[in-house]
């Protein structure tokens, strides 16, 4: 079904073996998650809609928080954060789940990481769509600033690929990294300004803008879609720098050490 939706676009792209392969791997990953093809997509759509509806009810009726549109405010940060944790956590076990290919055919493994991130982003696209639908539904006007969205998404994308590769390398030496990783992501979660405005976090602890790129990413996401203003360019710059460093470190360390990881499978 995703294929049918995207067919007009896919048909215009010239035949390229590598693009096809990355897309196919991403597609089957996504398909495996939502097993049956047609109903699967239906669930992928419904899941975020239900989630946001539950948040909405919890924060308006249970906690009675009097901030306007708090559930949507929350969801903006949550979906970005969830996309990244999903990609990095799956990256930890990627060479294990794709062992059947790595051991039998010679190819460039970065394709696996790109396709993993794409498959996570397909799910993320549903969340994002649900988010935008709710933003429109409660009457927040869209502005042209929304067009900056791709910049934020690309930033998250490269962060995902880079951190997945770095984690693969780390777990060669520390096999129990996944337990530590769960703690690190939890710390990251509470310091990313998902439940409160990121500005408060940055005022309290300024180095956070470099340490945790998601503070800036979430702030910019809310700026362009929720507040209808332009992104904070200095934060955007810092976040891109972090993303590119993470990606480069990831690729170099993977090239250097990945054979050890494969040996220990």
């Amino acid at each position, binding site marked *: 079904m995703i294929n049918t939706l995207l067919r007009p676009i896919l048909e215009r792209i010239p035949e390229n073996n590598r693009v096809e*392969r990355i897309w196919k791997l991403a597609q089957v990953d996504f398909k495996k998650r939502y097993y049956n093809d047609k109903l699967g997509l239906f669930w992928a759509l419904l899941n975020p809609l239900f989630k946001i509806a539950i948040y909405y009810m919890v924060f308006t009726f249970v906690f009675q928080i009097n901030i306007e549109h708090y559930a949507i405010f929350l969801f903006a940060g949550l979906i970005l954060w969830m996309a990244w944790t999903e990609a990095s956590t799956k990256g930890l076990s990627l060479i294990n789940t794709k062992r059947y290919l790595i*051991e039998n055919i010679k190819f460039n493994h970065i394709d696996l990481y790109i396709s993993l991130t794409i498959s996570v982003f397909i799910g993320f696209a549903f969340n994002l769509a649900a988010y935008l639908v709710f933003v429109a539904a409660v009457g927040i006007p869209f502005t042209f600033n929304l067009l900056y969205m791709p910049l934020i998404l690309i930033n998250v994308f490269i962060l995902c690929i880079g951190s997945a590769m770095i984690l693969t390398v780390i777990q060669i030496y520390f096999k129990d990294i996944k337990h530590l990783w769960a703690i690190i992501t939890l710390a990251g979660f509470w310091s990313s300004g998902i439940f409160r405005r990121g500005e408060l976090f940055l005022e309290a602890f300024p180095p956070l803008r470099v340490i945790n790129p998601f503070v800036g990413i979430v702030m910019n996401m809310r700026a362009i879609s929720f507040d209808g203003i332009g992104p904070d360019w200095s934060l955007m710059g810092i976040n891109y720098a972090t993303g590119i460093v993470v990606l480069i470190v990831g690729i170099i360390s993977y090239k250097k050490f990945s054979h050890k990881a494969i040996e220990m499978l």
Partner: protein
Amino acid sequence: MSNEVAIEVKNLSKTFAMINKESRQLREKLLRPFSTKHKVKEIKALDNINFTVNKGEFFGIIGKNGCGKSTLLNCIMGSLRPDKGSIVNTEGKIIRLALGMGFDPNLSARDNIYINGSILGLTFREIGDIFDNIVEFAELERFVDVPVKQYSSGMQAKLKFSVAIHAKADIFLMDEFFGGVGDINFRKKSTKVFNDTFLDGRTIVHVTHQLETIKKHCQRVLVIDQGKQVGLGHPDEMIPLYASLFTKHAAPKI
């Protein structure tokens, strides 16, 4: 068989670092940073192997269990990195055919065929052209969209065999993989196709314990024992050499 070299292996050695399983944990390293338990034990799996395989040659590798045959294939494949100073040059795309080969059990035959084909460098259009042939040969037309894990082992073997003979790679590394799988009918058909068309003109490295296929097809054979190269030459000379490995360290009497 031409004189162009498809695989060149020079001074190939492979040492495995056997790290204590517990030492790979952060917990252990933090609690006992200077423990002698963390010492790395080294095991030499391959020691100075030298040979070349020409294009179109059927090259055999024989040796006892655990002598390093599969490690050697993995080094040629590139999934294991050999020690410093080793040279492994290969020409073109390589696929390894083994019984546990290349399928994700949760995906359908269709997806598995597309993924494998794509990684081997075929475009989707090219895969589409041979797709029907693959499925038809494997006699699995009715089960193309069923996850492979639901196949019987015979059906899986058929599918693997069919993908293998349709795969377009330059070098085939066959790890205990040869024609003759499935029921009687399929066995006949597969053996015939294998001998008549598949073997013709392909560069194949074959690791096996079946000396008949070695005798019948191989132009040259490499004999390995405990990671060392014992002999390289015509099967008629190498098979007796291989047999003598067993008599040298005779099995203990029970």
